[in-house]
Protein backbone atom coordinates (compact mmCIF):
# COMPACT_ATOMS: atom_id res chain seq x y z
CA UNK A 1 0.00 0.00 0.00
CA UNK A 2 1.38 3.43 -0.86
CA UNK A 3 1.96 6.06 1.76
CA UNK A 4 -0.81 8.16 0.30
CA UNK A 5 -3.42 5.37 0.29
CA UNK A 6 -2.58 4.59 3.88
CA UNK A 7 -2.90 8.23 4.99
CA UNK A 8 -6.07 8.84 2.97
CA UNK A 9 -7.72 5.77 4.43
CA UNK A 10 -7.02 6.87 7.96
CA UNK A 11 -7.98 10.47 7.29
CA UNK A 12 -11.18 9.36 5.62
CA UNK A 13 -11.91 7.26 8.70
CA UNK A 14 -11.97 10.54 10.64
CA UNK A 15 -8.58 10.23 12.23
CA UNK A 16 -6.23 13.20 12.58
CA UNK A 17 -2.80 12.17 11.37
CA UNK A 18 0.35 12.37 13.45
CA UNK A 19 3.87 12.13 11.98
CA UNK A 20 6.81 12.44 14.35
CA UNK A 21 10.33 13.00 13.07
CA UNK A 22 13.62 11.48 14.13
CA UNK A 23 17.13 12.15 12.85
CA UNK A 24 18.47 8.82 11.64
CA UNK A 25 21.58 7.66 13.44
CA UNK A 26 21.32 10.21 16.23
CA UNK A 27 22.17 7.44 18.75
CA UNK A 28 23.42 3.88 18.23
CA UNK A 29 19.99 2.58 19.17
CA UNK A 30 17.99 5.25 17.41
CA UNK A 31 15.54 2.74 15.88
CA UNK A 32 14.10 2.34 19.37
CA UNK A 33 12.58 5.78 18.86
CA UNK A 34 10.81 4.45 15.76
CA UNK A 35 9.31 1.62 17.80
CA UNK A 36 8.22 4.00 20.54
CA UNK A 37 6.61 6.31 17.96
CA UNK A 38 4.76 3.37 16.40
CA UNK A 39 3.52 2.30 19.81
CA UNK A 40 2.39 5.85 20.59
CA UNK A 41 0.10 5.87 17.60
CA UNK A 42 2.10 7.55 14.85
CA UNK A 43 0.46 7.33 11.42
CA UNK A 44 3.79 7.72 9.67
CA UNK A 45 7.33 8.48 10.79
CA UNK A 46 9.75 10.92 9.15
CA UNK A 47 13.35 9.73 9.25
CA UNK A 48 15.95 12.39 8.59
CA UNK A 49 19.00 11.34 6.57
CA UNK A 50 21.51 13.84 7.94
CA UNK A 51 23.19 16.30 5.59
CA UNK A 52 26.16 18.50 6.45
CA UNK A 53 24.35 21.73 5.61
CA UNK A 54 20.76 21.61 6.76
CA UNK A 55 20.01 25.11 5.48
CA UNK A 56 16.27 24.87 6.05
CA UNK A 57 16.36 23.51 9.56
CA UNK A 58 16.36 25.38 12.82
CA UNK A 59 18.87 25.09 15.55
CA UNK A 60 17.45 21.89 17.14
CA UNK A 61 17.55 19.80 14.01
CA UNK A 62 20.92 21.33 13.07
CA UNK A 63 22.24 20.08 16.39
CA UNK A 64 20.71 16.66 15.90
CA UNK A 65 22.20 16.51 12.41
CA UNK A 66 25.65 17.54 13.62
CA UNK A 67 25.44 14.92 16.36
CA UNK A 68 24.46 12.15 13.97
CA UNK A 69 27.20 13.08 11.47
CA UNK A 70 29.73 13.34 14.27
CA UNK A 71 28.78 9.78 15.20
CA UNK A 72 29.59 8.80 11.60
CA UNK A 73 26.01 8.19 10.57
CA UNK A 74 25.53 7.69 6.83
CA UNK A 75 22.41 7.32 4.73
CA UNK A 76 23.44 3.76 3.90
CA UNK A 77 23.75 2.76 7.58
CA UNK A 78 20.49 4.42 8.49
CA UNK A 79 18.65 2.64 5.69
CA UNK A 80 20.33 -0.57 6.81
CA UNK A 81 19.04 -0.06 10.34
CA UNK A 82 15.52 0.47 9.02
CA UNK A 83 15.40 -2.40 6.62
CA UNK A 84 15.80 -4.95 9.37
CA UNK A 85 12.89 -3.51 11.29
CA UNK A 86 9.46 -5.08 11.93
CA UNK A 87 6.77 -2.45 12.10
CA UNK A 88 3.52 -1.40 10.56
CA UNK A 89 4.05 2.37 10.26
CA UNK A 90 5.00 3.91 6.90
CA UNK A 91 8.44 5.49 6.93
CA UNK A 92 9.12 8.76 5.11
CA UNK A 93 12.75 9.67 4.48
CA UNK A 94 13.68 13.34 4.50
CA UNK A 95 16.94 14.79 3.36
CA UNK A 96 18.55 17.53 1.28
CA UNK A 97 18.79 17.52 -2.47
CA UNK A 98 22.56 17.11 -2.55
CA UNK A 99 22.33 13.52 -1.27
CA UNK A 100 19.90 12.71 -4.06
CA UNK A 101 22.14 14.33 -6.68
CA UNK A 102 25.17 12.57 -5.26
CA UNK A 103 23.70 9.09 -5.78
CA UNK A 104 21.53 10.01 -8.72
CA UNK A 105 17.72 9.90 -8.30
CA UNK A 106 17.30 6.29 -9.48
CA UNK A 107 19.92 4.78 -7.20
CA UNK A 108 18.81 6.94 -4.34
CA UNK A 109 15.15 5.96 -4.63
CA UNK A 110 16.00 2.31 -5.14
CA UNK A 111 17.94 2.31 -1.89
CA UNK A 112 14.96 3.83 -0.10
CA UNK A 113 12.60 1.22 -1.56
CA UNK A 114 14.94 -1.59 -0.60
CA UNK A 115 14.89 -0.33 2.97
CA UNK A 116 11.10 -0.31 3.01
CA UNK A 117 10.69 3.46 2.91
CA UNK A 118 7.53 4.61 1.16
CA UNK A 119 7.81 8.38 1.15
CA UNK A 120 10.42 11.09 0.54
CA UNK A 121 10.70 14.75 1.53
CA UNK A 122 13.42 16.96 -0.02
CA UNK A 123 12.82 20.47 1.30
CA UNK A 124 15.39 22.22 -0.93
CA UNK A 125 14.21 20.52 -4.13
CA UNK A 126 13.25 23.28 -6.59
CA UNK A 127 9.88 22.50 -8.13
CA UNK A 128 11.24 23.44 -11.55
CA UNK A 129 13.90 20.74 -11.33
CA UNK A 130 11.79 18.11 -9.61
CA UNK A 131 10.91 16.09 -12.73
CA UNK A 132 13.75 13.57 -12.63
CA UNK A 133 13.27 12.80 -8.99
CA UNK A 134 9.49 12.53 -9.36
CA UNK A 135 9.98 9.97 -12.11
CA UNK A 136 12.55 7.99 -10.17
CA UNK A 137 10.42 8.01 -7.04
CA UNK A 138 7.35 6.91 -8.95
CA UNK A 139 9.29 4.04 -10.53
CA UNK A 140 10.46 2.92 -7.12
CA UNK A 141 6.98 3.16 -5.65
CA UNK A 142 7.91 6.02 -3.40
CA UNK A 143 5.67 9.00 -2.79
CA UNK A 144 7.58 12.26 -3.27
CA UNK A 145 6.09 14.81 -0.91
CA UNK A 146 6.22 18.45 -1.99
CA UNK A 147 6.14 21.46 0.31
CA UNK A 148 4.05 24.60 0.26
CA UNK A 149 4.43 27.74 2.32
CA UNK A 150 2.26 30.75 3.09
CA UNK A 151 4.28 32.70 0.50
CA UNK A 152 3.53 30.23 -2.30
CA UNK A 153 1.35 31.93 -4.92
CA UNK A 154 -1.93 30.22 -5.79
CA UNK A 155 -0.99 28.88 -9.24
CA UNK A 156 2.12 27.31 -7.83
CA UNK A 157 0.14 25.95 -4.89
CA UNK A 158 -2.21 24.29 -7.32
CA UNK A 159 0.73 22.74 -9.15
CA UNK A 160 2.25 21.49 -5.91
CA UNK A 161 -1.06 20.00 -4.84
CA UNK A 162 -1.30 18.27 -8.17
CA UNK A 163 2.23 16.90 -8.30
CA UNK A 164 2.80 16.03 -4.65
CA UNK A 165 2.35 12.41 -3.62
CA UNK A 166 1.66 10.98 -0.18
CA UNK A 167 0.51 14.25 1.25
CA UNK A 168 1.23 17.95 0.98
CA UNK A 169 3.63 19.33 3.51
CA UNK A 170 2.31 22.70 4.66
CA UNK A 171 5.09 24.79 6.16
CA UNK A 172 3.26 26.61 8.91
CA UNK A 173 5.54 29.56 9.41
CA UNK A 174 7.84 31.33 7.03
CA UNK A 175 11.18 30.33 8.36
CA UNK A 176 12.98 27.29 9.53
CA UNK A 177 11.86 24.35 11.63
CA UNK A 178 11.68 24.80 15.37
CA UNK A 179 9.42 24.97 18.36
CA UNK A 180 7.27 28.04 18.72
CA UNK A 181 4.90 29.04 21.48
CA UNK A 182 1.82 29.43 19.29
CA UNK A 183 0.91 28.05 15.93
CA UNK A 184 0.77 30.85 13.46
CA UNK A 185 -2.53 31.78 11.94
CA UNK A 186 -0.79 31.46 8.60
CA UNK A 187 -0.71 27.68 9.13
CA UNK A 188 -4.49 27.44 9.35
CA UNK A 189 -4.96 29.69 6.37
CA UNK A 190 -2.42 27.81 4.30
CA UNK A 191 -3.88 24.39 5.10
CA UNK A 192 -7.35 25.63 4.13
CA UNK A 193 -6.02 27.05 0.86
CA UNK A 194 -4.36 23.77 -0.03
CA UNK A 195 -7.37 21.72 0.87
CA UNK A 196 -9.43 23.77 -1.53
CA UNK A 197 -7.08 22.58 -4.34
CA UNK A 198 -6.80 18.90 -3.56
CA UNK A 199 -8.21 15.77 -2.03
CA UNK A 200 -4.77 14.66 -0.86
CA UNK A 201 -3.98 14.75 2.83
CA UNK A 202 -2.46 18.00 4.07
CA UNK A 203 -0.03 17.86 6.97
CA UNK A 204 1.17 20.92 8.84
CA UNK A 205 4.76 21.06 10.02
CA UNK A 206 7.25 23.50 11.50
CA UNK A 207 6.51 24.76 14.97
CA UNK A 208 4.22 22.08 16.42
CA UNK A 209 5.49 21.37 19.90
CA UNK A 210 2.54 20.78 22.28
CA UNK A 211 -0.73 18.82 22.18
CA UNK A 212 -2.51 22.16 22.03
CA UNK A 213 -0.55 23.19 18.93
CA UNK A 214 -1.37 19.86 17.35
CA UNK A 215 -5.08 20.21 18.03
CA UNK A 216 -5.14 23.75 16.74
CA UNK A 217 -3.23 22.94 13.56
CA UNK A 218 -5.31 19.84 12.90
CA UNK A 219 -8.52 21.87 12.81
CA UNK A 220 -7.88 22.94 9.23
CA UNK A 221 -5.32 20.31 8.23
CA UNK A 222 -5.45 16.54 8.14
CA UNK A 223 -2.59 16.09 10.50
CA UNK A 224 0.61 17.40 11.99
CA UNK A 225 4.32 16.75 11.76
CA UNK A 226 6.31 17.03 15.00
CA UNK A 227 10.03 17.42 14.49
CA UNK A 228 12.00 19.87 16.57
CA UNK A 229 9.95 19.26 19.73
CA UNK A 230 10.74 15.56 19.56
CA UNK A 231 14.41 16.10 18.78
CA UNK A 232 14.83 18.64 21.59
CA UNK A 233 13.82 15.86 24.00
CA UNK A 234 16.10 13.34 22.28
CA UNK A 235 19.05 15.76 22.42
CA UNK A 236 18.34 16.36 26.09
CA UNK A 237 18.73 12.60 26.62
CA UNK A 238 15.11 11.47 26.90
CA UNK A 239 14.81 7.72 26.38
CA UNK A 240 12.46 6.34 23.69
CA UNK A 241 9.85 5.45 26.31
CA UNK A 242 9.58 9.05 27.51
CA UNK A 243 9.55 10.61 24.06
CA UNK A 244 6.90 8.03 23.11
CA UNK A 245 4.85 9.10 26.12
CA UNK A 246 4.93 12.74 24.95
CA UNK A 247 3.74 11.66 21.57
CA UNK A 248 1.00 9.54 23.06
CA UNK A 249 -0.31 12.62 24.83
CA UNK A 250 -0.48 14.40 21.53
CA UNK A 251 -2.21 11.40 19.99
CA UNK A 252 -4.83 11.44 22.74
CA UNK A 253 -5.40 15.15 22.40
CA UNK A 254 -6.01 14.76 18.67
CA UNK A 255 -8.35 11.82 19.22
CA UNK A 256 -10.30 13.59 21.96
CA UNK A 257 -10.73 16.62 19.78
CA UNK A 258 -12.22 14.42 17.08
CA UNK A 259 -14.55 12.72 19.55
CA UNK A 260 -15.64 16.07 20.98
CA UNK A 261 -16.73 17.32 17.57
Amino acid at each position, binding site marked *: MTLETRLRDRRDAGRKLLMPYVTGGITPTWVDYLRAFADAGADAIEVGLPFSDPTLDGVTIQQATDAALARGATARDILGDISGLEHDVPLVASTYYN*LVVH*DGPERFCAALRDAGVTGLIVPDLPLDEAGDLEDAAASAGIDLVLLASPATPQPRLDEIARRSRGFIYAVSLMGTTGERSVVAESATTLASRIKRSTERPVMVGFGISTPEHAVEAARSADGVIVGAAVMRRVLDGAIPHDVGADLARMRRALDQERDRR
Partner: protein
Amino acid sequence: REVEEAFREAWVDPGFRGSLARLLAVHIGRPTPLTPVRRLSAELGINLLLKREDLAHTGSHKINNVTGQALLASRMGKTRLIAETGAGQHGVATATVAALLGLKATVFMGERDIERQALNVFRMRMLGAEVIPVGTGSRTLKDATSQAMRHWVGATEDSYYCVGSVIGPHPYPWMVRTFQRVIGDEARGQCASELSTGVPDYVVACVGGGSNAAGTFAGFVDTSARLVGVEAEGGAGAALGRAGVLHGARSLFLQDGHGQIVEAHSVAAGLDYPGVGPEHAYLRDLGRARYVTVTDDEAISALVRLARTEGIVPAIESAHAVAWVIRAAGAGELPSGATVLLTLSGRGDKDVSTLKEQL
Protein backbone atom coordinates in the same frame (compact mmCIF):
# COMPACT_ATOMS: atom_id res chain seq x y z
CA ARG B 1 10.42 34.66 -7.69
CA GLU B 2 9.92 38.23 -6.51
CA VAL B 3 13.65 39.07 -6.75
CA GLU B 4 13.97 37.75 -10.26
CA GLU B 5 11.05 39.73 -11.54
CA ALA B 6 12.22 42.90 -9.82
CA PHE B 7 15.71 42.48 -11.24
CA ARG B 8 14.47 41.85 -14.78
CA GLU B 9 12.37 44.96 -14.62
CA ALA B 10 15.08 47.10 -13.07
CA TRP B 11 17.77 46.02 -15.46
CA VAL B 12 15.86 47.24 -18.49
CA ASP B 13 14.89 50.49 -16.75
CA PRO B 14 17.25 53.29 -17.82
CA GLY B 15 16.46 55.07 -14.55
CA PHE B 16 17.79 52.18 -12.51
CA ARG B 17 20.82 51.67 -14.72
CA GLY B 18 21.53 55.39 -14.57
CA SER B 19 21.32 55.56 -10.78
CA LEU B 20 23.59 52.56 -10.49
CA ALA B 21 26.14 53.95 -12.93
CA ARG B 22 26.17 57.27 -11.12
CA LEU B 23 26.62 55.69 -7.69
CA LEU B 24 29.45 53.55 -9.01
CA ALA B 25 31.13 56.63 -10.46
CA VAL B 26 30.68 59.25 -7.76
CA HIS B 27 30.58 57.11 -4.65
CA ILE B 28 32.49 53.92 -5.38
CA GLY B 29 35.21 55.33 -7.60
CA ARG B 30 34.63 53.50 -10.87
CA PRO B 31 36.18 52.99 -13.29
CA THR B 32 39.03 51.43 -11.35
CA PRO B 33 42.40 51.73 -13.09
CA LEU B 34 44.20 49.11 -15.09
CA THR B 35 47.75 49.07 -13.78
CA PRO B 36 50.59 47.79 -15.95
CA VAL B 37 52.93 46.07 -13.55
CA ARG B 38 56.47 46.88 -14.61
CA ARG B 39 58.94 45.41 -12.19
CA LEU B 40 57.24 42.08 -11.53
CA SER B 41 56.49 41.71 -15.24
CA ALA B 42 60.16 42.18 -16.03
CA GLU B 43 61.12 39.57 -13.45
CA LEU B 44 58.60 37.10 -14.84
CA GLY B 45 59.18 37.82 -18.52
CA ILE B 46 55.53 38.54 -19.16
CA ASN B 47 53.30 41.58 -19.42
CA LEU B 48 51.05 41.66 -16.37
CA LEU B 49 48.17 44.09 -16.01
CA LEU B 50 46.14 44.44 -12.83
CA LYS B 51 42.49 45.42 -12.76
CA ARG B 52 42.45 47.37 -9.52
CA GLU B 53 39.32 46.46 -7.59
CA ASP B 54 41.38 47.11 -4.45
CA LEU B 55 40.86 50.81 -5.23
CA ALA B 56 37.07 50.60 -5.19
CA HIS B 57 35.39 52.09 -2.12
CA THR B 58 35.60 49.68 0.85
CA GLY B 59 38.57 47.97 -0.78
CA SER B 60 37.17 45.18 -2.91
CA HIS B 61 35.01 44.30 -5.87
CA LYS B 62 32.18 43.23 -3.55
CA ILE B 63 30.80 46.75 -3.56
CA ASN B 64 29.86 46.58 -7.27
CA ASN B 65 27.35 43.83 -6.65
CA VAL B 66 26.08 45.22 -3.36
CA THR B 67 25.44 48.64 -4.86
CA GLY B 68 23.31 46.99 -7.52
CA GLN B 69 21.40 44.72 -5.16
CA ALA B 70 20.84 47.40 -2.53
CA LEU B 71 19.44 49.77 -5.15
CA LEU B 72 17.18 46.91 -6.21
CA ALA B 73 16.10 46.29 -2.64
CA SER B 74 15.23 49.97 -2.24
CA ARG B 75 13.25 49.84 -5.43
CA MET B 76 11.39 46.79 -4.10
CA GLY B 77 10.50 48.73 -0.95
CA LYS B 78 12.60 46.63 1.38
CA THR B 79 14.04 48.31 4.46
CA ARG B 80 16.71 45.85 5.49
CA LEU B 81 19.57 43.98 3.86
CA ILE B 82 20.57 40.55 5.08
CA ALA B 83 23.96 39.24 4.08
CA GLU B 84 26.50 36.57 4.80
CA THR B 85 30.21 37.34 4.75
CA GLY B 86 33.48 35.41 4.75
CA ALA B 87 36.46 37.73 4.67
CA GLY B 88 34.14 40.51 5.72
CA GLN B 89 34.45 42.44 2.47
CA HIS B 90 30.92 41.64 1.38
CA GLY B 91 29.68 42.47 4.86
CA VAL B 92 31.48 45.81 4.85
CA ALA B 93 30.17 46.54 1.38
CA THR B 94 26.63 45.69 2.49
CA ALA B 95 26.91 47.80 5.63
CA THR B 96 28.29 50.63 3.51
CA VAL B 97 25.60 50.72 0.87
CA ALA B 98 22.91 50.17 3.51
CA ALA B 99 24.15 53.31 5.28
CA LEU B 100 24.29 55.19 2.00
CA LEU B 101 20.71 54.29 1.07
CA GLY B 102 19.31 54.49 4.59
CA LEU B 103 18.62 50.76 4.94
CA LYS B 104 19.26 48.53 7.94
CA ALA B 105 21.86 45.79 7.59
CA THR B 106 22.18 42.41 9.32
CA VAL B 107 25.33 40.49 8.51
CA PHE B 108 25.95 36.84 9.37
CA MET B 109 29.57 35.85 9.82
CA GLY B 110 31.24 32.64 11.00
CA GLU B 111 32.90 32.88 14.40
CA ARG B 112 36.20 31.75 12.93
CA ASP B 113 36.07 34.51 10.34
CA ILE B 114 35.12 37.05 12.99
CA GLU B 115 38.39 36.21 14.73
CA ARG B 116 40.41 36.39 11.53
CA GLN B 117 38.84 39.58 10.24
CA ALA B 118 38.40 41.75 13.30
CA LEU B 119 39.09 44.91 11.31
CA ASN B 120 36.15 44.29 9.01
CA VAL B 121 33.85 43.38 11.89
CA PHE B 122 34.63 46.70 13.50
CA ARG B 123 34.10 48.53 10.22
CA MET B 124 30.66 46.95 9.80
CA ARG B 125 29.66 47.99 13.29
CA MET B 126 30.99 51.51 12.74
CA LEU B 127 28.75 51.65 9.69
CA GLY B 128 25.78 50.76 11.82
CA ALA B 129 25.30 47.14 10.77
CA GLU B 130 24.34 44.33 13.12
CA VAL B 131 26.90 41.51 12.92
CA ILE B 132 25.60 38.11 14.00
CA PRO B 133 28.21 35.45 14.81
CA VAL B 134 27.54 31.96 13.47
CA GLY B 135 28.89 29.17 15.63
CA THR B 136 27.60 26.16 13.71
CA GLY B 137 29.55 23.81 11.46
CA SER B 138 32.93 25.03 10.32
CA ARG B 139 32.07 28.52 11.60
CA THR B 140 33.01 30.05 8.25
CA LEU B 141 31.33 31.34 5.11
CA LYS B 142 29.32 28.20 4.32
CA ASP B 143 27.64 28.26 7.70
CA ALA B 144 27.14 32.00 7.66
CA THR B 145 25.38 31.57 4.31
CA SER B 146 23.11 28.86 5.69
CA GLN B 147 22.26 30.98 8.68
CA ALA B 148 21.60 34.09 6.62
CA MET B 149 19.25 32.09 4.39
CA ARG B 150 17.42 30.65 7.37
CA HIS B 151 17.01 34.09 8.85
CA TRP B 152 15.81 35.57 5.60
CA VAL B 153 13.10 32.98 4.96
CA GLY B 154 11.43 34.28 8.11
CA ALA B 155 11.75 37.93 7.15
CA THR B 156 11.13 38.24 3.42
CA GLU B 157 8.41 40.82 3.99
CA ASP B 158 10.73 43.74 4.82
CA SER B 159 14.15 42.22 4.14
CA TYR B 160 16.20 41.63 1.05
CA TYR B 161 18.83 38.91 0.99
CA CYS B 162 21.94 40.41 -0.52
CA VAL B 163 24.02 37.45 -1.69
CA GLY B 164 27.72 38.20 -1.94
CA SER B 165 28.83 35.85 -4.67
CA VAL B 166 27.61 34.02 -7.73
CA ILE B 167 26.09 31.36 -5.49
CA GLY B 168 22.67 30.67 -4.02
CA PRO B 169 19.39 30.04 -5.80
CA HIS B 170 18.40 31.52 -9.12
CA PRO B 171 18.42 34.44 -9.96
CA TYR B 172 21.34 35.26 -7.66
CA PRO B 173 24.26 33.76 -9.59
CA TRP B 174 23.05 35.42 -12.76
CA MET B 175 22.24 38.73 -11.10
CA VAL B 176 25.51 38.94 -9.18
CA ARG B 177 27.48 38.11 -12.33
CA THR B 178 25.56 40.82 -14.15
CA PHE B 179 26.41 43.40 -11.49
CA GLN B 180 30.07 42.31 -11.41
CA ARG B 181 30.36 42.36 -15.17
CA VAL B 182 31.39 46.00 -14.85
CA ILE B 183 34.87 44.69 -13.96
CA GLY B 184 35.22 42.72 -17.16
CA ASP B 185 33.61 45.35 -19.35
CA GLU B 186 35.85 48.10 -18.04
CA ALA B 187 38.93 45.89 -18.31
CA ARG B 188 38.04 44.93 -21.85
CA GLY B 189 37.90 48.56 -22.87
CA GLN B 190 41.08 49.41 -20.97
CA CYS B 191 42.95 46.49 -22.54
CA ALA B 192 41.78 47.62 -25.94
CA SER B 193 43.55 50.94 -25.49
CA GLU B 194 46.50 49.65 -23.48
CA LEU B 195 47.47 46.56 -25.49
CA SER B 196 48.48 46.47 -29.12
CA THR B 197 46.75 43.10 -29.39
CA GLY B 198 43.55 44.54 -27.98
CA VAL B 199 42.86 41.59 -25.72
CA PRO B 200 45.20 39.87 -23.27
CA ASP B 201 46.41 36.32 -23.83
CA TYR B 202 45.28 35.28 -20.35
CA VAL B 203 42.63 36.52 -17.98
CA VAL B 204 43.16 35.41 -14.40
CA ALA B 205 41.13 35.85 -11.24
CA CYS B 206 40.82 34.17 -7.87
CA VAL B 207 37.73 32.06 -7.19
CA GLY B 208 35.99 31.58 -3.88
CA GLY B 209 32.31 31.64 -4.74
CA GLY B 210 33.66 33.20 -7.90
CA SER B 211 32.06 36.60 -8.33
CA ASN B 212 35.11 38.64 -9.29
CA ALA B 213 36.15 35.91 -11.70
CA ALA B 214 32.65 35.64 -13.15
CA GLY B 215 32.45 39.40 -13.61
CA THR B 216 35.90 39.52 -15.20
CA PHE B 217 35.40 36.49 -17.44
CA ALA B 218 32.09 37.89 -18.66
CA GLY B 219 34.00 40.68 -20.36
CA PHE B 220 36.31 38.27 -22.19
CA VAL B 221 34.35 35.09 -22.74
CA ASP B 222 33.78 36.01 -26.39
CA THR B 223 37.47 36.74 -27.05
CA SER B 224 40.49 34.56 -27.63
CA ALA B 225 41.76 35.14 -24.09
CA ARG B 226 42.33 32.03 -22.01
CA LEU B 227 40.40 32.22 -18.76
CA VAL B 228 42.00 30.92 -15.57
CA GLY B 229 40.28 30.75 -12.18
CA VAL B 230 42.59 30.31 -9.23
CA GLU B 231 41.30 28.58 -6.13
CA ALA B 232 42.76 27.92 -2.73
CA GLU B 233 44.05 24.38 -2.53
CA GLY B 234 41.79 23.79 0.46
CA GLY B 235 38.72 25.30 -1.16
CA ALA B 236 38.94 24.14 -4.75
CA GLY B 237 35.28 23.69 -5.60
CA ALA B 238 35.80 24.15 -9.31
CA ALA B 239 39.07 22.27 -9.63
CA LEU B 240 38.22 19.34 -7.38
CA GLY B 241 34.49 19.51 -6.67
CA ARG B 242 31.73 17.21 -7.86
CA ALA B 243 28.25 18.11 -9.00
CA GLY B 244 25.92 18.84 -6.14
CA VAL B 245 23.43 21.24 -4.66
CA LEU B 246 24.05 23.73 -1.87
CA HIS B 247 22.39 26.95 -0.87
CA GLY B 248 19.96 26.50 -3.72
CA ALA B 249 22.58 26.29 -6.43
CA ARG B 250 23.36 23.26 -8.57
CA SER B 251 27.08 23.45 -9.11
CA LEU B 252 30.42 21.93 -8.08
CA PHE B 253 31.12 21.31 -4.42
CA LEU B 254 33.73 19.54 -2.36
CA GLN B 255 32.04 16.42 -1.04
CA ASP B 256 32.94 13.22 0.70
CA GLY B 257 31.98 9.79 -0.60
CA HIS B 258 28.57 10.07 1.05
CA GLY B 259 27.59 13.39 -0.51
CA GLN B 260 28.33 15.39 2.59
CA ILE B 261 29.83 18.83 1.91
CA VAL B 262 33.44 18.99 3.05
CA GLU B 263 34.69 22.00 4.96
CA ALA B 264 37.05 24.25 3.01
CA HIS B 265 40.35 25.29 4.56
CA SER B 266 42.22 28.33 3.39
CA VAL B 267 44.21 31.13 4.93
CA ALA B 268 41.97 33.35 2.80
CA ALA B 269 38.59 33.67 4.46
CA GLY B 270 37.07 34.77 1.17
CA LEU B 271 38.11 31.52 -0.53
CA ASP B 272 36.91 29.35 2.32
CA TYR B 273 33.81 28.13 0.50
CA PRO B 274 33.52 24.52 -0.61
CA GLY B 275 31.84 25.30 -3.89
CA VAL B 276 31.75 27.68 -6.80
CA GLY B 277 28.98 29.44 -8.62
CA PRO B 278 27.14 27.45 -11.29
CA GLU B 279 28.64 29.52 -14.05
CA HIS B 280 32.11 28.30 -13.18
CA ALA B 281 30.88 24.72 -13.27
CA TYR B 282 29.52 25.48 -16.71
CA LEU B 283 32.71 27.17 -17.95
CA ARG B 284 34.75 24.28 -16.63
CA ASP B 285 32.56 21.70 -18.31
CA LEU B 286 32.67 23.62 -21.57
CA GLY B 287 36.46 23.82 -21.32
CA ARG B 288 36.20 27.60 -21.72
CA ALA B 289 37.91 28.25 -18.38
CA ARG B 290 40.55 26.34 -16.45
CA TYR B 291 40.58 26.12 -12.70
CA VAL B 292 43.84 25.72 -10.85
CA THR B 293 44.85 25.77 -7.20
CA VAL B 294 47.60 27.33 -5.13
CA THR B 295 48.64 26.73 -1.55
CA ASP B 296 48.43 29.12 1.38
CA ASP B 297 52.22 29.49 1.33
CA GLU B 298 52.34 30.32 -2.36
CA ALA B 299 49.66 32.95 -1.87
CA ILE B 300 51.48 34.60 1.02
CA SER B 301 54.79 34.69 -0.87
CA ALA B 302 53.04 36.20 -3.85
CA LEU B 303 51.43 38.83 -1.64
CA VAL B 304 54.80 39.89 -0.26
CA ARG B 305 56.39 39.83 -3.69
CA LEU B 306 53.75 42.06 -5.24
CA ALA B 307 54.02 44.44 -2.28
CA ARG B 308 57.79 44.71 -2.64
CA THR B 309 57.92 45.02 -6.40
CA GLU B 310 54.88 47.15 -7.08
CA GLY B 311 53.80 48.82 -3.89
CA ILE B 312 50.47 47.02 -3.84
CA VAL B 313 49.44 44.88 -0.89
CA PRO B 314 46.69 42.67 -2.28
CA ALA B 315 44.05 40.79 -0.32
CA ILE B 316 45.18 37.24 0.42
CA GLU B 317 42.37 36.10 -1.85
CA SER B 318 43.71 38.10 -4.79
CA ALA B 319 47.25 36.99 -3.96
CA HIS B 320 46.20 33.48 -5.02
CA ALA B 321 45.77 34.69 -8.57
CA VAL B 322 49.15 36.43 -8.43
CA ALA B 323 50.71 33.23 -7.07
CA TRP B 324 49.49 31.19 -9.99
CA VAL B 325 50.84 33.71 -12.48
CA ILE B 326 54.24 33.63 -10.77
CA ARG B 327 54.28 29.84 -10.76
CA ALA B 328 53.03 29.51 -14.33
CA ALA B 329 55.51 32.07 -15.64
CA GLY B 330 58.33 30.28 -13.83
CA ALA B 331 57.27 26.92 -15.22
CA GLY B 332 57.02 28.20 -18.78
CA GLU B 333 53.31 27.54 -18.73
CA LEU B 334 52.81 31.21 -19.47
CA PRO B 335 54.90 31.81 -22.57
CA SER B 336 57.47 34.59 -22.46
CA GLY B 337 55.93 37.90 -23.42
CA ALA B 338 52.38 36.74 -22.75
CA THR B 339 49.94 39.47 -21.75
CA VAL B 340 48.06 38.61 -18.60
CA LEU B 341 45.12 40.51 -17.17
CA LEU B 342 44.64 39.76 -13.49
CA THR B 343 41.76 41.06 -11.44
CA LEU B 344 43.08 42.21 -8.10
CA SER B 345 39.84 41.71 -6.23
CA GLY B 346 40.74 43.58 -3.06
CA ARG B 347 43.34 45.10 -0.83
CA GLY B 348 45.25 43.40 1.96
CA ASP B 349 44.64 45.71 4.91
CA LYS B 350 42.07 43.32 6.32
CA ASP B 351 44.63 40.51 6.32
CA VAL B 352 47.21 42.09 8.56
CA SER B 353 46.49 39.96 11.60
CA THR B 354 46.55 36.79 9.50
CA LEU B 355 49.81 37.84 7.87
CA LYS B 356 51.39 38.67 11.22
CA GLU B 357 50.75 35.10 12.27
CA GLN B 358 52.01 33.60 9.05
CA LEU B 359 55.15 35.65 8.42
